[in-house]
């Protein structure tokens, strides 16, 4: 549910980073915030607990500048990954235009990833959306850790519809921008498809 203002020529889209607790959603945003020049991004807002766990959401606005006369902005959000924050997680999905599903590649997180994907589908439905109608990019994070599931196996577990997927080490920034570029393009393509004749 993007906001398109033809009067002052603005397009705003909402991208949500989803995934189980501690999979690296906030780390993605922190890296993007660090690397993009201040004139193209706003402040990173984090509603976190004292131990830096996301409580409600993180928020980072990005400004793509003018495209065909339209000032185009992306609003990046993360959801709280911990299971018991489900009520809050649902709320962040309101008005989502595109998703990044962040996967914790470690073997012991397999169940959590699958559960989180199921939870995403349920929560989208509760807000009146279907995952099938939304652009999504999958990110296999923590590829630097020793005990990880091979990508082919993760693809089978998570990426059922063959969305673009990327391996990443979010703490070092590896794969972070590949993911962001891919989801941004998908979102704008989907908006543009809906809007043009």
């Amino acid at each position: 549910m993007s906001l398109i203002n033809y009067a002052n020529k603005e397009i705003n889209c909402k991208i949500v980073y989803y995934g189980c607790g501690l999979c690296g959603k906030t780390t993605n945003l922190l890296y993007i915030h660090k690397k993009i020049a201040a004139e193209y991004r706003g402040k990173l807002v984090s509603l976190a607990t004292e131990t830096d766990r996301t409580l409600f959401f993180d928020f980072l606005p990005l400004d793509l500048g003018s495209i065909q006369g339209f000032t185009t902005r992306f609003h990046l959000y993360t959801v709280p990954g911990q299971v018991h924050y489900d009520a809050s997680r649902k709320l962040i999905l309101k008005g989502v235009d595109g998703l990044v599903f962040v996967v914790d590649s470690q073997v012991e997180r397999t169940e959590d990833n699958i559960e989180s994907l199921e939870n995403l589908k349920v929560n989208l439905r509760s807000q009146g959306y279907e995952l099938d109608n939304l652009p999504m990019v999958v990110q296999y994070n923590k590829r630097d850790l020793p005990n990880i599931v091979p990508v082919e196996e993760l693809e089978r577990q998570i990426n059922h519809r063959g969305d673009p997927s990327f391996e990443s080490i979010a703490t070092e920034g590896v794969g972070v921008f590949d993911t962001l570029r891919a989801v941004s393009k998908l979102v704008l393509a989907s908006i543009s498809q809906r809007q043009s004749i």
Partner: protein
Amino acid sequence: MQHEQSVELFEEDYQIINRVLSRLLTEANARIVLLVDRSGQLISSHGDTSNMDSTAFASLSAGNFAATSALAKILGQDEFSVLFHQGEKESIHISVVQSRVILVIVFDNRTSLGLVRLRVKKALEELSTVFENIFAKLGASSERKSLDSSFASVAESEIDNLFKD
């Protein structure tokens, strides 16, 4: 389904919205008036926002409203139509327009909650009419689409340009 649609604003509606907001700012003697999409996107702002991060403010207002609506649902009611946060110097009044858009007023002791409340009530009636109209148009047809078909491809190169390490 209405929820899956974008909010699209055209010139004439946007002008009316801005007229209503600007009058509300003056008549309520408020500091700032913001109109925010429920997903957290800023539609319009009036008043002096030079010392304020209005993008973050909009996003947090929507989050605030969403959280409170969820509280209302737990209590078995639809939503709280008005939220009021009182501060020592500045206060915030948040209300909902047509279930889809939220109106945020920031005010200080130059005015009163009573006055803000009364002015908001009037503005809400006017905004409701405008948005009812907008949503009816969005629901009715797709004839006013005006993004160029090459928009996505132009956007792609901008994305490559900007979103990089």
